[in-house]
């Protein structure tokens, strides 16, 4: 009956437990993600976002509470961890640190190759993944990874993960360090994967424009707990919430809040530039 692909129930984690430096990173966190959803996790530095997502592919095991992904129980010591990691692709915040092959194409092919796929399919997947992240296969496959720019390395790392064709894609700051066009293209491609192939996407982001553009639903974390969840419109329209949890606003929303402080009646939930422009037109047309 269930359409839930990721279910986290009452998950807690204490770093350096039993020492004077013990730090409660997660405190009874529960989240539910439906198959095909696109979820953002936001929150101040140190709020527990990274600790949470590291549980999703079994990099961390629950100290208490439960994490079930696509029917696989992460707290089960006998879990097939390789199966879990093929289903859940986790791309770290500095994925360029994860590159280790000399050539771009080899690096992306590494995962599918290790899965024992026939060479023709490996090649097909590499081409497909490079296309998704916006790297030209012919031009880039034989480039040495050391001569890439920071943003290009990021794309290579993401392509390497996509080539495993995971069911759930977990991204930590997917577009940090990308130029505006690459950022938009990558967001559009992730959105396309999400919508057309029903790939479930969970991403952590500090970039509120990105959250506004991509997420269907947002979890706000604070002090190791889920402070609230809602649509981007609900979250960005709530200035008290944003201030309380030190969350930045998309630039469009910032302009609308400034206008509201000056006494103008505007809908501060209008987070896209087009919507903000429409709100402003309403004001000056009166």
């Amino acid at each position, binding site marked *: 009956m269930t359409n839930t692909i990721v279910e986290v129930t009452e998950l807690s984690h204490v770093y350096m437990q039993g020492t004077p430096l013990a730090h409660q990173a997660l405190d009874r966190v529960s989240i539910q993600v439906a198959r095909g959803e696109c979820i953002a996790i936001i929150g*101040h*530095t*140190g709020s527990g976002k990274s600790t949470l997502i590291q549980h999703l592919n079994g990099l961390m095991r629950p100290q208490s509470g439960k994490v079930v992904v696509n029917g696989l129980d992460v707290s089960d010591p006998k879990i097939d961890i390789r199966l879990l990691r093929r289903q859940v692709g986790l791309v770290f*915040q*500095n994925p360029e640190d994860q590159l280790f092959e000399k050539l771009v194409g080899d690096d992306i092919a590494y995962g599918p190759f290790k899965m024992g796929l026939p060479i023709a399919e490996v090649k097909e997947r590499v081409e497909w993944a490079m296309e998704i992240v916006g790297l030209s296969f012919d031009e880039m496959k034989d*480039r*040495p990874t*050391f*001569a*890439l*720019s*920071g*943003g*290009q390395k990021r*794309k290579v790392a993401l392509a390497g993960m996509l080539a495993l064709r995971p069911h759930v894609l977990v991204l930590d*700051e997917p577009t*940090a*360090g*990308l*130029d*505006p*066009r*690459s*950022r*938009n293209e990558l967001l559009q491609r992730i959105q396309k994967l999400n919508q057309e192939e029903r790939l479930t996407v969970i991403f952590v982001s*500090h970039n*509120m*424009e990105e959250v506004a553009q991509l997420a269907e639903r947002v979890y706000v974390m604070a002090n190791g707990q889920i402070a609230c969840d809602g649509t981007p419109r609900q979250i960005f329209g709530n200035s008290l919430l944003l201030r309380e949890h*030190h*969350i*930045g606003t*998309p*630039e*469009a929303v*910032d*302009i609308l809040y*400034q*206008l509201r402080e*000056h006494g*103008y009646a505007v809908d501060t939930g209008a987070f896209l*530039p*087009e919507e*903000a*422009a429409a709100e*402003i*037109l309403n*004001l*000056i*047309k*009166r």
Partner: protein
Amino acid sequence: MTTNHPIIRVENVSFSYKVNQDQQIPVLQNVSLDVFPGEYLAIIGHNGSGKSTLSKHLNGILTPGTGDVYVNDINTRDRERIYEVRSQVGMVFQHPDNQIVATIVEDDVAFGLENIGIAAQEMKERIDTSLEAVGMNAFRHRPPHHLSGGQKQRIAIAGILAMRPRCIVLDEATSMLDSNGRQDILAVIRKLHKEGMTIVTVTHHMSEVAEADRVVVMEAGQIVLQGTPREVFAHQERLQELHLDVPDASRIAALVHQNWESFSPNLIANEEVVEEVQRHVINQAEASGT
């Protein structure tokens, strides 16, 4: 020396990464650029356009394939004077964790000073003023790995300030930070610039670019556009061709302008949009009511 004498002169610089014996990837092609004292310069360009490579030439981390870079008239090829070059032009990198070396904040700030043999009393003074300048004095006895990304970047800036440089180069120094961390760094940069520090920043955040005095746009290893932020952001289509963008404030202003001609399309900051709205609403009220 007049005040208009550039701090940094980049003259006809080309640079390639060598892949193997017979293949090279050109990154910079005949770039020339002067950086003037007290200037706030932003360098933008898409991933792989050469902007980071250019910034690494500004204090001799990289030296040109052909052409020359002078810092205060010292050629960066002169390896005997490289410490002079680096004490004049300090660099902050993208990843906070990669530039912290010590286990206590004040030791980290002292690191560069120890290397150039500064006396203990002066070292203490310099550490005090540098930490003060970035607002991190309260953290001086803390271990840096417990700090947030933004705080680590401020420590990195303090370490550079302690060397008493004339220019700070930031290579995407805010791109890994959350919005609070970014605002903290921008506030520090603004203050330093106001006090006369020369700032060169490489960034993808167009709203940061809007604060600079001058913008240089890179494409395929060349400078293809430059001017004030307002001049550069007026070329919205050209910027999009170059994989760049304008701040959301500019985009919103342009959208309103399409439907309401008297609304200025040429705005670059959120505050300017708010002011422009106020100006219109007041004009409307005067025209219709009183």
